[in-house]
């Protein structure tokens, strides 16, 4: 194994230019599990732990190297709430938002927030920077649009701290669970409601029909909420796997999305 431990972002970009396709190592909470259990043996590893530029966390931008532990205590309520559900204190101290994007699991908790706020993923290489909407970055299960000479710098997000927002997740226990279904709802304005669902499709997804059903109505009736629930259930693409059946996921997703939406409504 060839190991590079750059001190700064330029060092990362140079290393990627010299070794395109090298494996980037952030908190290691996904990668090291593969190394330990699946005996993944990347040829070249570039360590990101020392790179200060990736740790920026400010209104409008979250660096790829920001850990769940920092997000947990950050100013964005739904992001803090979801960060608190990731793994355990040990996992949150090491794992990063950039690693969640790099893994691109359909169940990644952070991805629900990024989809809900329409985040843009910022990528950098020695040839420059480019910015992709989350939906162009996440292209399939564990697949994303990063070129092999690029590093994820971070995500551009709206200044969402004051928006009504909530996150919720279904799993088998309170800690340490990969979501069976997860959900983030943000409601920047009465006429703008966004619902992102995870673990119910090849990537995190939005449910536009369900969003349209509750837009413009700060006090939806029980019937309207029931309709919202149905539209979520029908607007997703879950599969059956060892964690849950498709039918369970559809049911849970509808209930979870309705409850999460209710937490974003006034009063």
């Amino acid at each position, binding site marked *: 194994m060839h190991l590079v431990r750059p001190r700064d972002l330029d060092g990362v970009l140079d290393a990627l230019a010299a070794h395109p396709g090298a494996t980037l190592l952030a908190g290691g909470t996904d990668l090291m*599990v593969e*190394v330990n259990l699946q005996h993944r043996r990347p040829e070249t590893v570039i360590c990101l732990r020392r790179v200060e530029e990736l740790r920026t966390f400010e209104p409008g931008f979250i660096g790829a190297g920001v850990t769940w532990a920092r997000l947990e205590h950050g100013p964005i309520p739904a992001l803090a709430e979801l960060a*608190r559900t990731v793994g355990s204190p*040990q996992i949150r101290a*090491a794992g990063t938002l950039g690693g969640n994007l790099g893994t691109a699991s359909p169940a990644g908790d952070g991805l629900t927030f990024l989809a809900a706020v329409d985040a843009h993923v910022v990528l950098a290489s020695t040839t420059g920077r480019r910015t992709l909407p989350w939906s162009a970055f996440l292209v399939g299960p564990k697949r994303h649009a990063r070129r092999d000479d690029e590093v994820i710098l971070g995500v551009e997000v709206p200044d969402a701290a004051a928006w009504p927002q909530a996150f919720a997740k279904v799993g088998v226990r309170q800690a340490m669970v990969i979501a069976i279904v997860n959900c983030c709802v943000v409601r920047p304005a009465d006429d703008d409601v966004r619902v992102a669902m995870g673990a119910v499709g090849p990537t995190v997804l939005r449910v536009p029909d369900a969003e349209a059903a509750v837009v413009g109505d700060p006090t939806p009736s029980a019937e309207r909420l029931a309709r919202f629930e149905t539209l979520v259930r029908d607007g997703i693409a879950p599969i059956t796997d060892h964690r849950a059946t498709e039918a369970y996921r559809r049911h849970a997703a509808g209930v979870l999305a309705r*409850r999460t939406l209710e937490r974003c409504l006034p009063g």
Partner: protein
Amino acid sequence: MIVSLTVNGEPRTAEVAGFESLLWVLRERLDLRGAKDACLQGECGSCSVVLDGDLVCSCLVLAADAEGAEVTTVEGLGDATSPHPVQSAFVAHGAAQCGYCTPGLVVALAHLRENRPDASPDDVREALAGNLCRCTGYGAILRAAAEVLGRGDPGAGPVGDPDGTRSQGDGEVTP
């Protein structure tokens, strides 16, 4: 490659091969057998150490990436002649059975005590969510924790949500 790091306050160097984890290097290269290897996937916490101030699973740290780091293992907290208060509390409360999980729990609790001495019983439960014990049922562990975190007996019930305030029916998380 040679990796230099500070372990329990002492500068150490180790010859590290390819993909060895920090856990492996602590145990097999530096002969510190406190941190345990049980799952190698971040699930059990038996390998917990403090790395540059953070409680982490050492099985998920690439040893070569720990160059220059400061590491504290259970051996650095105390020993039989001068135990750390958490270690004393574990002895006093009989908080170990097979003992496999104990070093990780002790390191996690010592870290909590140092960073949040005012942690409530609920905070303690949260803080130990990443440390599994398959023997004791957690009651004695929580009593030991309550002693060193100075907040009275949190009860010997199962870890989780005894009064149901944090979960709603289907397991939705509403912290």
